[in-house]
């Protein structure tokens, strides 16, 4: 199969993720969409790795996973703490500061 198709898929996933960030309200879902974007990048990296015939892309993908994991830890901590305060996970409720 032409690896380019994986790139299209990656782009699609990335777009879906980005749209999710823009559309969804729940902080957790929103965050998951970001994760989707990261994973889209991973897919692209791996595909390119394959195309170029070197492993750099795959290595980067591993790094990305670690980073994503770390991000989850921090992100969930923040989201949970705000959820406990506001009893809502909607990002639209966090709207004290504006203008």
């Amino acid at each position: 199969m032409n690896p380019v198709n994986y790139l299209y898929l990656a782009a699609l996933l990335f777009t879906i993720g980005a749209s999710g960030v823009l559309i969804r309200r729940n902080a957790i879902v929103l965050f998951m969409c970001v994760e989707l974007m990261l994973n889209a990048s991973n897919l692209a990296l791996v595909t390119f790795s394959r195309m170029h015939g070197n492993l750099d892309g795959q290595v980067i993908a591993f790094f990305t996973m670690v980073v994503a994991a770390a991000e989850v830890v921090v992100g969930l901590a923040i989201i949970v703490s705000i959820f406990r305060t506001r009893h809502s996970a909607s990002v639209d409720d966090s709207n004290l500061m504006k203008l």
Partner: protein
Amino acid sequence: MSHLLAAAGGNSPSIPAPHVEYGQLSPMLVVFGAAIAGILVEAFLPRRYRYGTQVAIALLALGGSFAAVVVLAAQGHATTKSGLLAMGAVAIDGPALFLQGVILLSAVVTVLMYAERRLEPRLNGHGVDAFAAQGAAVPGGEQERQATTAGFTTTEVFPLTLFAVGGMLLFPAANDLLTMFVALEVFSLPLYLLCALARRRRLLSQEAAVKYFLLGAFASAFFLFGIALLYGYAGSVQLGDIADVVSGVAPVTPALAVTTQNDVLLLLGLAMVSVGLLFKVGAVPFHSWTPDVYQGAPTPVTGFMAAATKTAAFGAFLRLFYVAFPGLKWDWRPVMWGVAILTMVVGAILAVTQQDVKRLLAYSSIAHAGFILTGVIATNRQGLGAVLFYLLAYSFVTLGAFAVVTLVRDSKGEATHLSSWAGLGRRSPLVAAVFALFLLAFAGIPLTSGFTGKFAVFQAAAAGGATPLVIVGVLSSAVAAFFYIRVIVLMFFSDPQAGGPAVAVPSPLTATAIGLGVLVTLVLGLAPQYFLDLAGKASLFVR
């Protein structure tokens, strides 16, 4: 990283240990080591010893790291001996060392502000700082009450900050996109947490954190996808390699022959990587987080972000564009022109109607990002030196300004609404005068560091053929001056409100922080030659 491939493909039983120049990486290693030590302190030391130990560790580490930077620079690593470390992942050169120095100094000032315990009213005999008693406790809940009464403090902020500093040190030195990404995350994640840890107005603080986190992650995703595309185009994430591919110097492999046909990969990758960096820099239209986060975060953290994050991000920005994409100058310059103009104009105009001093400084930082961008766009050595100098100047002014913000307090903590700053000049002439000095430096009034910096970047931009940018910069400086002046008017020419805020008397820590700010602002304004030389000498990237 093609050696990895070679190692894997060779099916060799022993993977050769990568060569790492520990000595030259020592600034980062010291900071990271200290950060881990700080975690251990949190884990094992009784609560009452933590504060002192953490402050000591942080200051020692930062001091040591700075000393290492100085030694490295003195040894010539900034100029003649500059080179790539850790198998090409990290560069040690002028800009890297210069910016690391700036970041470390900012961090020292930041730690001084963190350690300040005289501003908040004492609780049960414990001096407390600007951070939440217990970050995990629900604001206004029983748990928080208990923690507060017990006089708890979140001493984790010191190791967190050290981690962030470590990441920031790495960021401008990162010579491949992967390292850059990792560094970005290493300094971003602790900052997300730090933002959430304000002692007062915790709702705002949490909101700032969640906004910063979500948007930061969003930006990181763009950055990463950009990396993927660039990797796809060039087959490497090393900046030098990318530059070679772009300029057609690199040997053409079959895969490259395919991918380099498609400039879309390159240009799209460039654009998306830029998004990530412009987000950190706070450039329009990726700036919207700045005011909210600056307002909500604990003020020392805000100061740290405004100074160090900006420095680190611009360092990476410069390296990326000067090392990897000089060949694409004609593609990215026009776009950056647009971004710079937007940033200067929107930052300046939006600040005009702000009512909160921290938000005001946030918009000011946006406008300043625009000014610095004009220096970046100059794409000449002058421009590089100018940006380095500007970052040095700006860091200290902004840290000083936020340090002053921590002093002006009423019963609810910091009084950041501008109306409560009215008449400050009558009550505390010295504090008001110092703040006025910082504002004038922000406004770029001659004889302050802000002017020298602005002059340097504008001059470089003009020399680089970006005269229209200079004109826009000059005009938005005029608009920007308006809101700085407005604050001065409030402080000096308005009558104080009854029951308005008082200026807390700080401990020597904050006083030192402010004093450093004043000193640097004046020295860089009156006799900047030494530092201009330094920046000038440092203004060459290694490839």
